[in-house]
């Protein structure tokens, strides 16, 4: 907090200083920070156009805030004036605007960090509340320091920059299916509900005024109150997102409230515009035709906004068809066109929020399919970052704006009755509409849902920005309205936002589960859709499923053809879903390797000649780009629930810290260690043992599988081959990624991360240490200088890379393994590690038992090969754990090794054939189904499991 206050102090100090030197024409602090909309400086006007973006604003003149042009450069100007060269110059006026913007962003971000320091605190108090409070405090400090309030939430900035970032994010990531499933309810609440709220609030306020409960000073007629009712009645998307995101109510409830808050924008805009024009001409001059014009205007604004959005969605999707060569600007297209959809709607004073929302919803499917995985990530993160910071700024500035003496035209009657009315009418409206909707809904909204929906009708910054935009000349009671709006916003965001969580808990509202669907669910739900469509057809009902099916046909036959890349179009959606799941798994596995992996470059000499994908040097990248059927061990990953990932990550950090950094260091001495067995001999041995044991494990599991699955055609050939292996190709080639297979492991997801370090223990434990490791080593081809073949092919490599890259991989890995290896993990780790191994052990016993047959077979065949002398280990539970270790750990090893690829020994023809032979035995699910270059057709054979 100290840093924050320091920053604040600096800001305030500069403001205070500037107040001393108020000069007439000078730069405004920007970023909504700027006070007066009546900006004169060129810099300011760039950000604050005359006609504020919002459609409703076109009619409203800019608020004439009396805020003094707060200026600075008093300090800087005299520096400029001086003659002669100055070594250090104070160029405040030059950097002022961006500087202040950056400072506010920094304040907002730091504030976010601080709030999230205390877990207990943030779970109880929504961030939006804290931000508003912070804004209040900041505002108070600024006010005290500078006697004025130069900062407020500037409507122009809000509507043109802050709101679009939030709405864009909301629209683009809107769950389309859910949205359209509930479209009826959403439209109902958004249109009917908002109208109801607006009229009732307006009329009742007027009634209260007539009754005398509102002070005489509030100089407002019926039209003014209706106008106020219109702007105060709309549920605010920003507030709803901010509050509901933390509450995690179930999806249906969320989408209804959230959808309503977005869609009701059209209603708000029209009502606001209509009333303002009525207020302008005076209530007496309103003709009946004007009401119809209002209705027509509503239709135009809403439908027009939607169409503009969809138009841009089509353009965006179409453009992204052709960005294959310029992947780097894909995200930019997304941002630009979505934003243009918003601006264009503003341009024609249509509903910009609707436009942007539908642009996002409409383009999402096609754009996500067209752009690369990296672009997807970029889009996602950038949007989220922008939305998050925009939200933060909005709330902070709401708080700051409240601290302004000029705004405090307080009327208790108005404030209290407004609060009561919006709550009461919201509740009545929700109950009434829900009653009506439940006649038609498949899943009726029960009472609890209605309570949450009523209570979740939060008002926010949109209302505030609209009320600030009112023209004081025409709406005499503007100050009162502003004050009331602030109170209403604060009450809903802070009080309701604070209490909605306990309420939801207390009512036992079904929570949402943040869970990605499994492939089973994807398939079956798709089947359900087909079933329901068919049943509707049979039963002769042209229901929802019927029409959705029609739409899907249309989409498939026309839209997708137009908007999707050819390569993408030919993939079915289910396949996409499958790939997404796989890639998600793969990435989650790979990303746990963190920086190590992403920096890994596959620049093997053998690959230099590969022209098929010249630009692809990064394996991960390559896979993400091509989405080739990367199939990592699904079960292992799938059974790791989200919460576990952190735990796993931690484990990975331990691993990475202990294993990889040192290894990298050795790599720099690569050539030295390549030939000679240095002082690291012991570690080499350990790594070798580990690898061998892993391979043994995988071999066992393969064996086991092979026995189990008699349909596997490759079973027979492999076993004899292994016996025939000569020392130069000692390794079981069938280990292609089998390590992943350990089928039992997934059943104990909890133990998995923990068991990883356990394997380290194994390496050092006396049990694991082979009695005569050296004799095995002596026979190793690469140690004895024969070194013609990559002996230790790290298993996982083959998993991650396409089959046709395997050769290269194997080479690099083998050279790695013959090389320096990670030093032993630090001693202190031991106690914990062994404890963990004990923990993990028993749970894994099933696997051990099952694979015992494989053990015999494996060791039997291995003993015949000199290079595998180390396989005669006690096969304890440690080995079982090790196989688990390998799943994660080995994955990284190959990639690491490829950082500095060694010149691989020229693979003799025998090696080639060995590689070839191995390919059919791709048992693992982890395998590349579609090698891009199409080499080695058998390798395409998908997993036999």
């Amino acid at each position, binding site marked *: 907090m100290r840093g924050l206050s320091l920053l604040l102090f600096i800001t305030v100090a500069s403001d205070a200083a500037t107040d001393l030197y108020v000069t007439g024409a000078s730069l405004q602090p920007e970023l909504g920070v700027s006070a007066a909309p009546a900006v004169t400086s060129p810099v300011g006007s760039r950000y604050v156009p005359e006609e504020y973006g919002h459609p409703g604003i076109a009619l409203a003149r800019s608020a004439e805030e009396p805020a003094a042009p707060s200026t600075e450069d008093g300090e800087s100007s005299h520096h400029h004036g001086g003659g002669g060269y100055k070594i250090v110059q104070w160029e405040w006026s030059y950097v002022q605007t961006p500087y202040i913007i950056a400072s506010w962003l920094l304040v907002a971000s730091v504030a976010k960090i601080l709030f999230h320091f205390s877990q207990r605190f943030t779970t109880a108090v929504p961030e939006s509340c804290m931000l508003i409070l912070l804004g209040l405090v900041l505002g108070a400090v600024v006010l005290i320091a500078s006697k004025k309030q130069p900062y407020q939430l500037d409507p122009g900035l809000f509507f043109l920059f802050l709101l679009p970032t939030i709405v864009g994010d909301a629209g683009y990531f809107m769950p389309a299916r859910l949205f359209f499933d509930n479209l009826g309810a959403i439209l109902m609440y958004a249109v009917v509900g908002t109208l109801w709220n607006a009229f009732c609030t307006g009329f009742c306020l007027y009634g209260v005024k007539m009754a005398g409960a509102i002070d005489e000073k509030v100089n407002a007629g019926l039209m003014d109150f209706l106008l106020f009712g219109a702007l105060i009645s709309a549920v605010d998307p920003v507030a709803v997102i901010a509050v509901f995101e933390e509450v995690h109510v179930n999806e249906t409830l969320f989408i209804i409230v959230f959808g309503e808050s977005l869609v009701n924008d059209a209603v708000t805009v029209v009502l606001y515009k209509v009333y303002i024009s009525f207020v302008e001409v005076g209530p007496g001059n309103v003709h009946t035709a004007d009401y119809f014009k209002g209705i027509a205007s509503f239709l135009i604004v809403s439908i027009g906004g939607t169409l503009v959005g969809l138009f841009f969605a089509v353009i965006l999707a179409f453009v992204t068809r052709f960005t294959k060569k310029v992947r780097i600007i894909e995200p930019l297209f997304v941002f630009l066109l979505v934003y243009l959809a918003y601006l264009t709607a503003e341009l024609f004073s249509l509903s910009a929020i609707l436009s942007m929302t539908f642009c996002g919803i409409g383009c999402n499917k096609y754009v996500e399919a067209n752009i690369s995985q990296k672009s997807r990530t970029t889009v996602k993160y950038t949007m989220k970052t922008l939305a998050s910071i925009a939200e933060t700024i909005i709330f902070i500035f709401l708080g700051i704006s409240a601290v302004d003496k000029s705004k405090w035209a307080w009327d208790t009657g108005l404030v209290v009755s407004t609060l009561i009315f919006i709550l009461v009418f919201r509740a009545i409206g929700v109950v009434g509409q829900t009653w009506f909707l439940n006649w038609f809904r*498949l899943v009726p909204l029960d009472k609890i849902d209605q309570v949450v929906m009523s209570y979740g009708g939060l008002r926010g910054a949109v209302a505030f920005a609209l009320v600030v935009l009112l023209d004081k000349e025409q709406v005499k009671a503007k100050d009162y309205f502003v004050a009331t709006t602030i109170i209403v916003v604060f009450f809903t965001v802070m009080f309701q936002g604070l209490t909605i969580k306990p309420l939801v808990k207390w009512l036992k509202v079904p929570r949402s589960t943040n869970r990605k669907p499994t492939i089973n669910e994807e398939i079956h739900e798709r089947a359900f859709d087909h079933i329901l469509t068919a049943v509707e057809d049979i039963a002769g009902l042209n229901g929802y499923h019927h029409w959705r099916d029609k739409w899907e046909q249309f989409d498939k036959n026309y839209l997708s053809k137009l908007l999707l890349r050819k390569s993408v179009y030919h993939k079915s959606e289910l*396949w996409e879903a499958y790939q997404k799941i796989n890639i998600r798994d793969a990435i989650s596995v790979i990303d746990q390797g963190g920086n190590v992996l992403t920096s890994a470059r596959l620049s093997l000499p053998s690959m230099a000649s590969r022209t098929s994908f010249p630009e692809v040097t990064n394996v991960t990248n390559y896979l993400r780009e091509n989405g080739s059927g990367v199939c990592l061990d699904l079960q292992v990953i799938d059974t790791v629930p989200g919460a576990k990932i952190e735990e796993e990550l931690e484990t990975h950090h331990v691993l990475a810290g202990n294993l990889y950094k040192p290894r990298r260091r050795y790599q720099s001495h690569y050539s030295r260690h390549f030939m000679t067995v240095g002082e690291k001999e012991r570690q080499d041995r350990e790594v070798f043992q580990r690898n061998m044991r892993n391979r043994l494990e995988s071999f066992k599991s393969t064996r086991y599988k092979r026995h189990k699955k008699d349909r596997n055609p490759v079973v027979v050939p492999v076993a004899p081959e292994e016996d025939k292996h000569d020392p130069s190709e000692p390794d079981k080639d069938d280990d292609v990624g089998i390590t992943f297979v350990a089928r039992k492991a997934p059943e104990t997801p909890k133990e998995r991360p923990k068991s990883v370090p356990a394997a380290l223990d194994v390496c050092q434990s006396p049990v694991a240490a082979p009695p005569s490791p050296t004799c095995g080593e002596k026979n190793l081809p690469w140690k004895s200088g024969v070194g013609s073949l990559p002996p230790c092919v790290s298993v996982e490599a083959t998993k991650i890379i396409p089959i046709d890259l395997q050769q290269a991989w194997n080479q690099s890995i083998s050279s790695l393994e013959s090389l320096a290896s990670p030093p032993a993990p630090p001693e202190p780790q031991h106690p914990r590690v062994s404890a963990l191994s004990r923990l993990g052990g028993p749970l894994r016993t099933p696997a051990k038992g099952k694979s015992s047959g494989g053990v015999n077979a494996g060791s039997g065949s291995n003993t015949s090969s000199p290079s595998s002398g180390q396989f005669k280990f006690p096969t304890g539970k440690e080995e079982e754990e090790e196989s688990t270790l390998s799943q994660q750990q080995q994955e990284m090893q190959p990639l690491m090794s490829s950082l500095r690829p060694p010149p691989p020994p020229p693979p003799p023809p025998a090696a080639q054939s060995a590689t070839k032979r191995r390919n059919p035995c791709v048992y693992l699910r982890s395998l590349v189904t579609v090698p891009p270059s199409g080499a080695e057709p058998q390798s395409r054979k998908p997993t036999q499991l």
Partner: protein
Amino acid sequence: MGSTNSTLLKIPNVEVLMRETGFSPAHIIRLHDRFKALDKEGRGYLCPQDFGAIKELAMNPIGDRIIGAFFSPRETVDFHTFVKILAHFRPVDKDRPKEPNSPEPINSRSNKLKFAFQLYDQDKDGKISRDELLKVLRAMLGMQVTEEQLESIADRTIQEADLDRDDAISFEEFRKSLEKVNIDHKMSIRFLR
């Protein structure tokens, strides 16, 4: 109301049917109309050919299987069977008090799942084998996906759901894999509520 009653009266055992399926008279009448429309020859029962005449159904990738589900143990479908099968897709009504000893309603979660399950399990051995899954996938995915891709999807699916490692999905496993899915929502049609 007179016409309503007369239509209902034409249906034998209509009370039993309504009690078993939970459909209201309006539902029954509507379905009866549909039944008669499908039964062009007025035989009082439907044949697979009658279903084949529904042209939307012909475009449904798993339409054949659904027709098959109607005719699975029988050759023809009379009105009672027709309604009973459709009753699988009636939304679950929470309001209706559940009598403790009443049989499980047709539209219960487990019955809905069973209906879906039998679409996969064509050989009726109580398990979705890899081949059966592949067939469904092939039907649903169309020609756009290569056989290898299909197989890897199928493998993964089975592997994911298969708890007893028999390389097939039993009903229990099927139910488990969909545990988190709100079947009541996803397998229900709003029948004239």
